[in-house]
């Protein structure tokens, strides 16, 4: 059953990818990208990664779609005609794709419990999380406590990204319509 669900979802993902490539209207591309994220979230649920599925559904299908639509409102919504030569981009994509597939041959089989990543620190986290943190969800205790520095770094990245967008978009607007500011006492 799980194989069937995965096959259907992955086929749909491939179909949507091809549709995005063929689509000229950027509005259609944004909507298809939202559908892609929703399907990806379903794949992640099948993989039992509910945290990541939640993030993919809310950020990928939700907020990015809204922000991209807002961008389309500010810019043009049709793609420029594609460049004449597609040989070099196609070659680069094929080589990179082949290298990635070749790389997967070196990985342990999908879902094996004795893969190296599960042998290093994971047994200690699983055994000690209740005693050390009272938190039964190991994902939370690893993210927030054992790897607290990393999560602090991630939060700082989000902070920096937000400040960057605000500087870029708000700063120029104020310069453009200075009369709006002049009305305020």
């Amino acid at each position, binding site marked *: 059953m799980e194989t069937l669900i995965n096959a259907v979802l992955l086929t749909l993902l491939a179909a949507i990818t091809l549709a995005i490539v063929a689509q000229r209207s950027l509005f259609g591309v944004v909507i298809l990208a939202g559908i892609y994220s929703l399907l990806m979230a379903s794949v992640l649920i099948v993989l039992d990664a509910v945290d990541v599925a939640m993030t993919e559904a809310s950020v990928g299908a939700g907020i990015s779609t809204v922000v991209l639509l807002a961008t389309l409102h500010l810019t043009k919504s049709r793609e420029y005609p594609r460049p004449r030569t597609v040989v070099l981009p196609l070659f680069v994509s094929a080589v990179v794709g082949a290298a990635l597939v070749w790389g997967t041959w070196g990985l342990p089989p999908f879902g094996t419990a004795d893969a190296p990543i599960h042998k290093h620190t994971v047994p200690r986290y699983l055994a000690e999380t209740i005693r050390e943190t009272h938190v039964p969800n190991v994902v939370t205790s690893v993210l927030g406590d054992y790897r607290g520095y990393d999560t602090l770094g991630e939060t700082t990245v989000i902070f920096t990204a937000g400040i960057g967008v605000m500087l870029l*978009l708000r700063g120029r607007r104020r310069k453009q319509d200075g009369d709006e500011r002049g009305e305020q006492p």
Partner: protein
Amino acid sequence: MRHDVILRIGVKLILPFILLFALYVHFHGEYGPGGGFQAGVITAGMVIVYAIIFGADAAKRVFPQSVVERLVPLGVLIYASAGLPAMLNDRSFLDYGVLAADPAGGHALGILIIETGVLITVASTMTAIFYAFAGRRRA
């Protein structure tokens, strides 16, 4: 969407449940899937849905832009300051054990504090980015 009654009433009904779900994802993150990041994105989603249906100006009256933009650094500050008590007690930064008499309880409290910091930064950053886009006019 000024005249779309079904959307306006429907969204008004759904909004409190979205917020409740965000709080559930946040405070239940220690037991089930989710945590500060997911809760923050869902909270921002609530503000954005409100802004899409009722207009960005209505959303800015409820969640003022200046407040949202001040919350962006506040979350990071809350996160980082959760690690300071440990340093004052000669332990390493972000060692939450000193936050309560029982070390494990301190760790649980510390995780909740830093998740709250993540929630505040993520929710306000997403909302601020949306406000930044919504505030611009077509070039």
